[in-house]
């Protein structure tokens, strides 16, 4: 018998084994919890973002594997929706309304002030990592604007002064 040259068969690692534990668990739990739903991709992405604060691009392969979708399909959905984050946010997330009803009562000035105060543009995170500023197109608080949502808390009749007070409060 000739000694044949041994050929190494590449071993495919278990999907997701390259991920940090927290991310792997977040994806697995989110998928498990929502798998039975019709049209389950958005609920799963929401669940992942609720757990991690964002959807790191490296988890896409595991989501795709779990749902038998292509990575392109999953990436396509994540990138289509403004709410899904592909970058880690700061400690506090500010959604500032840019829509017409808020513009009518000073949202444009407030936007300029917020950007100056935090030293960021929209989608940016302040250099101390505390605040991420996002635009939002209507919070449904249109009779009491300008409006913003900080960490899920809605604030109306916002002024540059009140914005500064809010930042001072949360910054502590």
């Amino acid at each position, binding site marked *: 018998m000739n000694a044949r040259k041994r050929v190494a068969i590449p071993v495919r690692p278990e999907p997701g084994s390259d991920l940090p534990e927290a991310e792997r668990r977040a994806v697995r739990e989110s998928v498990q919890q929502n798998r039975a739903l019709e049209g389950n991709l958005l609920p799963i992405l929401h669940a992942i973002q609720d757990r991690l604060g964002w959807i790191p691009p490296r988890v896409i392969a595991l989501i795709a594997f779990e749902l038998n979708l292509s990575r392109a399909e999953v990436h396509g959905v994540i990138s289509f929706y403004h709410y899904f984050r592909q970058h880690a946010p700061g400690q506090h997330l500010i959604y500032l309304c840019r829509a*017409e009803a808020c513009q*009518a009562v000073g949202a444009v000035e407030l936007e300029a002030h917020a950007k100056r105060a935090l030293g960021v543009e929209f989608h940016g995170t302040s250099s101390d990592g505390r605040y991420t500023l996002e635009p939002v*197109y209507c919070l*449904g608080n*249109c*009779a009491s604007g300008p409006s913003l949502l900080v960490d899920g808390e809605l604030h109306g009749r916002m002024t540059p002064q009140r914005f500064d007070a809010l930042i001072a409060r949360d910054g502590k």
Partner: protein
Amino acid sequence: MTTTIYIPREATALSLGAQPVADAIAAQGARSGKPVRIVRTGSRGLFWLEPLVEVQTPAGRVAYGPVQAADVDGLFAAGFLTGGKHALHLGDVESIPYLKNQQRLTCARLGIIDPVNLEDYRAHGGYEGLKAAVAMQPGDIVKAVTDSGLRGRGGAAFPTGIKWKTVLDAAGEQKYIVCNADEGDSGTFSDRLLMEGDPYCLIEGMTIAGLGVGATRGYIYLRCEYPHAHATLKQAIATAYEKGFLGNDVAGSGRTFELQVRLGAGAYICGEETSLLESLEGRRGQIRFKPPLPALKGLFGCPTVVNNVISFASVPIILQKGATYYRDFGVGRSRGTLPIQLTGNVARGGLVERAFGVTLREMLYDYGGGTRSGRPVRAVQVGGPLGAYWPESKFDTPLDYEAFAAGGGMLGHGGIVVFDDTVDLAAQARYAMEFCAIESCGKCTPCRLGSTRGVEVIDRLVAGDRAAMQQTLLRDLCDTMLNGSLCALGGLTPYPVLSALDYFAEDFSKAAAPRAAQR
């Protein structure tokens, strides 16, 4: 004796400080040995008075507002638990002209009941419509909705009964009821107010729709910008299941209706019904070609009713009081009532439910009281970000779908955004194009590319760079978008742009730049 106090848990009231007020009243009540029971309600929609606190007295509810936490000590000192006089004393809230002169059919319970308390809902006429529907044949339910003259309140104003009839007659083992709660239009919040203040009304309306067309499954597609409404709906749906108003034996009828809330993810386009269906199926919210109509091939290819929150929420009263009762409100082909939202730079912003036919001027001045800034009203935008900007000369237009369309505008979801004389309409027109570029789903070229080109052309026009040519170009571009786009986003973005150009041309001329800077 324990005094009952009503304080909203609704998002606008919270945004203006309702939570610290509730906390302060509870604390002060405990401290002073005057027991209070605080009931958290929806908002009545009189937002300039929020946070509005109502005290139950033997003579009825006595209101105080707008109350801040710092006012609470003073209110106790003034004896507000027995309706005592105070600077913030408003008396019977229902005698305030703003509220008194409304016709609240769909929004009748807002601010009155505890939104998640099912017994409270039933004590105020809730589930009477379903009770009637359970005893009817599906075809008769649909006929009642058709006869009521109800048209889709989301904006397109398509007759609801005709849509339902199409789904009823469509063959299919599985049919769906989908509620479009992706209320993305700026200047609108009536869906949110209803979901936060009277969620069972929506659930009841969708259940009746299910019985009417033979659908056993429903979804509420809610925008994720509404976390408060999400929490309220989830709680209400869980309770409705528990009490047998959802599930496999709806109200003892032996029939099934399952209901879930699904969250959107910040895409304006998902308010377009076919994009919404794509999103519910777990895909990018790109619009579908029509036909096939969603009524025939909708969610997962099955016959589907897609209606707005207010459309569904108007159904219970139609079934309860009859089609004629509802139909007797309104004018022309616009029957029933419309929850109108007064927003932007307005002194008395809020919700006004009136029969169709009231004029824009009445809304702006009699209800709204002019601008919040005290300056003259220069423009209004009705119907969301795709609605036309109108000048004062159009304020006598009645709120009626046909009258608005005839005037070159649209009533849409009934949102009115008020601007004072500091507004720069060229900037608003530019924003309309910018918004379209941000929110375009990308499927059709006029919308995807036209919106970005539109921003550029407006910039050159305002800069005075061969202005006459730019204006021709802009009008040509708008014509292409209007006639060549697949859906309303690209197709209606020209409305705010062209109306700004037609009625406020001076803002686009080069001289406007220094004038705007002076303001």
